[in-house]
Structure formats: C-alpha cells, structure tokens
C-alpha cells in the first residue's frame, strides 16, 4: 500500500548539506500498522513527511496505493493536497480559528467531489463518534484538553477515509497515563477501519505494543525490520539491542562456530566460555558482542561446576522497582544486570550462580 524505494533526502542547514535519509526501502501491506522507530534525528519523521509530500527527496520512488507520488527519475512530484492521505501532526496542528466541527469538515470541503451539507454533517459526526468526541462539535478548538486535541486531529485525518494514515509521534504530547490508554485505542481504531498506517515514534513501548512491523532507524537508514517480537528477542545489531529495552553486553571472541545444537556456537568472554546463538557465517577468532536481556538471566541455587553457561557473580546492589527486583552483579570485572521476582531472597554482598540460557545469548558481530 505504501512503497518506498531507495529514498534519499538532503537538508540544507547553516553548516552545509545534511544527508538526512540515506536509502530507505519499505513495503507496507494493505491494512498493516507499520512503525518507524528511532532516536531523534534519525530521519524517521523526514521519511514520513516525504510520504506526505511535505519534503522534497533527492532520489527514490514513493507509491501510495498504486499511485506513483514521487519519482526522481520520472520527475514526478504529487503535491500533498493531491495525495490520498490523512495525517496527524506531533503538535496536532488544530486550527485555532475554527471550531471542532469545522476542523473535521475542512478536508471534506477541500475534496474535488462536493458533498451536501447533510453529508458533511453525517461524515463529521461519524468521525467524531469514532474518536469519542461527540457533543463537542461546537466547541472552539483552543478550548480542548491535550487528549481531546489529539483525538480531534485523528478525526480530521480519517474523515475522508484516506487509503493511508500518517502519524507523526501523535502520543508524545500526552501525559503518561493517557498515553497508555490511547495506545490501545488508536491501534484498535485503525485496525477496525482497515487503514494502512505509517507511524513514527521514538518510544519503544509504543512501537512494540502497537505495530505489526517495526523498522528501527539510525542515521538515515533502516537498521532492522521485523515484528516486535523479532526486534526484541533477536536484535541483529548492537544499536538495536541497546535501543530497545535493557541489555547486558559481554565482549568476546568466537571459540568455535558450531556445536551439537544447530545455530549455537561457543564464545570466549572475560568471564568464561559461553554457548551463544551465532549469526550465519561466523568463523572462529572473530570478535563478537554477546547480548542477553536481564530477564533471561536466572539465579540458580546450585549447579554442576562444569555446567554450560553458568557464571559465579557477586551481588553489588539491589533496587526495588515494585513489580521486580533489579539485581546488579559483578562477574569478575564484568557488570551484569538481572531482573528478579520482588520476593527473591537474594541479599547484597551474596555470591550467587547465574545461568545464561544459550538460546537467549545472542552473539553479534562487533
């Protein structure tokens, strides 16, 4: 439904040209909820704005549906007002001189097809009902709360039933509690309407909970793309592992590329030998970084001294987090963090045995 091919975009700044988007390729299926996730300045919003037609890319192609809306080779540029899109801006961009009804009716009044007053009334009422703003139609737009403005912006974006919905950090201006509720509602709504959605955020929780597919961006490129589960559990680069969730990193060297279990190899680290999931085509001697999530590390009462992936560590600090107990350990010079049940009997200063399941240890090329 949205296809972006080899997109490049430059910005002219005071300090010269900045290569903001460096060859993005994306293919979003009909009805999919697709998220661009990355730190600020990674080019995600610029990519979204290129789809909207608010930026002029240097190179590449963009399709919305079957329509070619931008192509550098064919010199095609469809202006934003002729693209079949709806968009929610980070600031919401609610027009303060219009009331709620007129804000939502605006896109309908700008369409080539002319609607009767009755039709406009019905469509606006329907859109407002979808976002639960019934009864506020006559309210001047500035007299809305942050959450109401966000929903108004959404109603305006979907009122003409566009094929594609573009959302630019729509939740970042809401407070934490409201953001959590809205996440679910928003996904539910676009899924019910079946609109293909391109979502941009820097919040990993939003990306993981709402998306069908997440693309992690860094410095103008997509680093990894996949389902939220894949992204979280099988990061392919250190940047991804670091950006999503808390992670332990252990530096090491491949000791042997294959073991009896398929895909598992041996890595020598400063804390001892670990069995890890190795990327394809690794050879012994290559430098790697072993990544393991805190919640995947188990503290075991006792284990055979020679058992695989068992390390001896000392508890440096315990931090009570309410739903979990974060445990900071040192294994030799290496620092590790694990998450324990809050009722866990571990004490500070205690020496414990840590078990790192081989399938949860992922070695990445350093």
């Amino acid at each position: 439904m949205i296809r972006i091919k080899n997109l490049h975009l430059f910005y002219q700044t005071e300090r010269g040209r900045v290569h903001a988007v460096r060859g993005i390729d994306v293919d979003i299926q009909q009805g999919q909820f697709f998220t661009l996730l990355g730190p600020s300045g990674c080019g995600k919003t610029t990519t979204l704005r290129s789809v909207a037609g608010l930026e002029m890319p240097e190179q590449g192609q963009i399709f919305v549906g079957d329509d070619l809306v931008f192509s550098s080779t064919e010199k095609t540029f469809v202006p934003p007002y002729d693209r079949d899109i709806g968009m929610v801006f980070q600031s919401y961009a609610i027009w303060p001189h219009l009331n709620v009804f007129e804000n939502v009716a605006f896109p309908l009044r700008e369409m080539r097809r002319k609607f009767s007053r009755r039709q406009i009334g019905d469509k606006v009422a329907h859109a407002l009902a979808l976002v639960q703003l019934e009864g506020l139609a006559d309210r001047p737009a500035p007299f809305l709360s942050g959450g109401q403005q966000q929903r108004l912006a959404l109603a305006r974006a979907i009122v003409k039933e566009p094929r594609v919905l573009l959302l630019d950090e729509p939740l970042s201006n809401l407070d934490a509690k409201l953001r959590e509720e809205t996440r679910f509602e928003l996904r539910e709504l676009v899924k019910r309407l079946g609109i293909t959605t391109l979502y941009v955020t820097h919040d990993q929780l939003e990306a993981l909970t709402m998306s069908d597919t997440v693309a992690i961006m860094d410095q103008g490129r997509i680093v990894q793309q996949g389902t939220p589960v894949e992204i979280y559990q099988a990061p392919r680069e250190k940047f991804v592992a670091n950006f999503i969730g808390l992670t332990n990193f252990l530096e090491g060297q491949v000791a042997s590329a294959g073991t009896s279990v398929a895909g598992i190899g041996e890595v020598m680290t400063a804390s001892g030998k670990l069995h890890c999931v190795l990327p394809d085509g690794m050879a012994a001697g290559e430098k790697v970084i072993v990544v393991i999530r805190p919640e995947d590390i188990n503290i075991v009462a006792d284990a055979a001294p020679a058992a695989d992936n068992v390390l001896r560590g000392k508890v440096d600090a315990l931090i009570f987090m309410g739903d979990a107990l974060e445990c900071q350990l040192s294994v030799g010079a290496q620092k590790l963090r694990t998450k324990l049940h809050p009722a866990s009997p571990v004490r500070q200063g205690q020496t414990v045995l840590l078990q790192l399941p081989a399938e949860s240890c992922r070695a990445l090329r350093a």
Partner: protein
Amino acid sequence: MFSLRLNLWQHGIFLLVLALVSLPLGFLILGSFSTARLPGDFSLDTMGLVNYIKVYTDPGTYELFTNTCIYVTGSVLLGISMAVTLAWLVERTNMPGKIWIYAGVPMTLAVPGMLQAMAWVILLSPRIGFINKSLQSLFNLDEPLIDIYSLGGMVFLEGLRLVPTAFLMLVPLMRGMDPSLEEAAAVSGARPFSTLRKITLRLLAPGLVAVMIYQAMTALEVFEIPGILGLPAGIHVFSTKIYAIVRSATFLPVYGQANALAMVYLFIAVVTTFFYTRLISRGERFTIITGKAYRPRQFDLGQWRFAALGFVVLYLFLAILLPFLAFAYASFLAFLQPPSLEAFRGFTLKNYRFLAQYGEVASALKNTVVMVVVTATMTVALSFFVSLVIVRSKFWGRKLLDQLAFMPHAIPGIVLGIAFFWVFLKIDFLPIYGTVWAISIGFTVSFLSYGTRSMSASLLQVHKELEEAAYVSGARPWRTMRRVFLPLMMPTLVGIWIWVVLHAVRIAGLPLILYEGQQNQVLSILIWNMWDEGYVPAVAAIGTLLMLTLLFLTLLVRYVGFRRQIVQPPLV
C-alpha cells in the same frame, strides 16, 4: 519545496527595502558635505567640510548638547521612577483597583504628545496658564509661579509621556520573576532588605537598564514636546535645532548644516540601538520566566494602600484627564480665560462651527485620511512580505533584510524627514515632493521596524504544521492561504494597521519637514500651524475631537489584541 518559485519576489522585496533605507541615508550623508545651499543644487563637485566646521565650532551647539543631556536624563529618570513604582504597585503589592491601572495606564498612549504639551501650555504658561493665573490671584503674586516654557517643563512632560511604555515593559519583568528565587534567599538567611538588594534588584537590573536605554532613545527622538515647550523660549534640543535650521522663519535655511548636525544625532541613535540590541540578546541569558504558573508573593501595604491608590489616580489625572479637560474646556471658549462661572456662562460652539467652515480643515482632514490609510496599508503589506522572507524563506539575504528593516528604528523622525527631503528633491522626475505620498513613504520606512518585528513574531507563532495540515487535508496553496493562514494572521494585520494609523496621525516631526503647502498639509501640521498663529480655542476644538477618536482607536487595538490572545495556537 515551494520556495524555488518565490525566489524572484524575494529579490524584489530585498531590493525595495534596500532602496527605501539606503537611499535616504546615503543622501543624508552626502548632503552633509554639500556646500550648496539647497538640496536641488546638490552636485558632487561642490563638496566640503564647511557644514561640519560651521556647526561644530558654534558655541550654541555645546549648549545644545548640555540641554539635550539634561532633558533626556531628567525625563528618563522621572519617567522610569514613576513607571517602576506603578509596575511594582500593581504586580507585587495588594493595592486596590489594579484592573483600572492595567486598563488606564496604556490609555495615556492615546494622547498625542503635541496636544498634551499644548494642554499644559494652556494650564501652565506664564501669560495665559489657568493654574498660574489662579495661583497668582489666590496668593496675590505679581509674577507667575511656574513657567512651562523651560527645560523643567520639558522634563516634566516627557517624563509623564515615557511612563506608559516603560510600565508595559516593566510589568512582564516583575511578573516573570519566580518568587522561589526570593524565597531561596530568605531560607538562606537573607533579611528582606538584603533579598531586595542582592536578589530582586540584581535580577531586574538588565531589564531595567534595557528599558532605560529604550526610553532615552524615545526622549531623544521626540520632537513635539521640545517643539511646543522649548522652541518659543529658544531652548533647543537636537530635534528642535535641526527643525529650526531647516524651517527658519528669519533667515534662509542651510540644509547641509542640518545634515551635519543630524550626523551626530544619528551616531548617538545608532550606537544606543546597537548597545540596546546587544543588551537584549545578552539579557536572554538572564531570562527568569519559567512558564510555570505561580503567584508572586504580594507585599502587604497596610494603610499605605490608599496612598498608593492616590498616587496612581494622581498620575492618571495628570497624564490624561487634566489635559483632556483643559482642551475640552478651552474648546468652548470664545477667548482664553481661566475657569470661572462667567466663563462657563459664555460657552459657545463657535470654535466647532469654525472648524466646519474653515477650508483648510477639510483639506487637512482629507489629506490625513489618505495619508494614514496609505501609510498603514503600505506598512502592513511591506512588513508582511519582508517578514515572510525573513521567517519562512531560505533566501540568502534574509538576515541582512532583517537588519535593514530594523535600521530605521535608530533614525529619529526629524532626521528621516530631512533624509527623504533630499531624496524627493533629487529624484524630481518622480512628482513625490510636496504630496501626501512623500509623508506616507517617510512614515512607512520609519514604521517598518515595528511592523516587521510584530509581523515576524506573529508569523513564528503560526506553527508551520497548521499549514501543512491543510495541505495534507487536500487544500491547495491559495486555499490554505485563504482558509488557514490569513484568518490566523488577520488580528496581527489589523493590529499593526491600527497601530500605524494611531502613530501616523499624531507624529508631527517628519511631516513638518516634508510639508510644502496646503496640498500635503495633514492634521498634525494644521494643528501646529494654527497653534503657531495663536488660534488656541480652535486648536482645542480639533484636539478634543482628535483625542476622542484616538481613544476609540486605542480601545479597538486593545480589543483586537485581546482577540489575538484567544487565537494563539495553544501548543501543548
């Protein structure tokens, strides 16, 4: 993406502003070296330092410096101390009736300086002043007690006139001060007085200095007050001296000398503006406005609350009510006399009838309407496009354009008048000199800095996403302009338009220089001339009507300004 197409008009705007600012300045500088007596005879062959030598060896010039210094310093000190007191009273104490002060003090801006000075002459001149006459008969004195035609009179009146602007600049400073800064000093063991000295005043200092410099510039540039109060007594300050050289009744004017004198005036103005802008940008580091909602602690005045109210009422009485009453009263008199039962009995409408019949009034009124409408429209249009380039485009010269548009701010109206006088006489192939257009063009340039500043600030507030939201909602550029951009900008456009009207009507300096005869005589010149010729009651009648009109317009501006606050996009 749309900017490529706009490049041509951006260059056009740039060149236009460049011409409007640098042409008059260039002629001003060249003219100061011209040895020809008249601008029309100017040529590059007759250049020399004669004017400079003549002006700066004249002992009168040093008296001029001294007078100007006393006048500026005195009025700034008086004005600022009143404004600080007023601002402190309304912001940081529990005095009663604050809402009336917020409403009343800015109203004093509506009274033109020229009229205020004239009203005070009616009240305090040694010969006809009502107050002087009453005091004389009360105490049986031979000599009048107060002479308004003096440096003291100028200081008093200009001091009063500086109050509203200074007040409006100081209120946000006082309001923006986070009380926790003072509370932190208190819990660190500082007593109230040392908190005031070490924290409050230190925090206020940069802002206060900036306000003082700004006000000193205003006092330096004002022509009307020294023109009405100083000229008749031969007490000159810079602005009146330059006027006197050009518009001397007794000897043939030497325009080059006016230019030479204007140079030092211009120099002072440019240097202070430079320091002022430096101070403002440095002051931003001192910014203490945190955007948090808090109520500053209020100082309990106790019984002094009513004394404070009395002070405020006295100020408002002196600044608006008394001059207005004096004018209104004088406008009904057949001849000037102090208020008495007899005088009230002799009230007549003949001055108003005279206005209706006197041909020059009708033509001046027509000229004024044309002049202010043209000036306001040109200023709004030009500032709009200039700000559009400055704020919204990627035009290479936008910073330079910003500075060019700000430059006229440093040029006193009288000097700008002289500069344009040279331009219009030199480019005589365009029949501008002697028309209302001459005045309109001069004013447009002089209001350009205000126009672009407010316009840019307002444009910055119209978040770009508001327009982008219209594009992605399917609106074409001109529809976006009409349905989103213009409605959002409208309060600003109207606000600037009315502001320009208000100022163009009452400023007399620049029109007096460019005035040539009845065909470009505007209201301010007519009043000036009638006053000069001694038609005091008739002037009072025009003045009364003008004050009422300006008061109405000022209220309108306040209303528009109020609307604007509602319309601001509330970004979360």
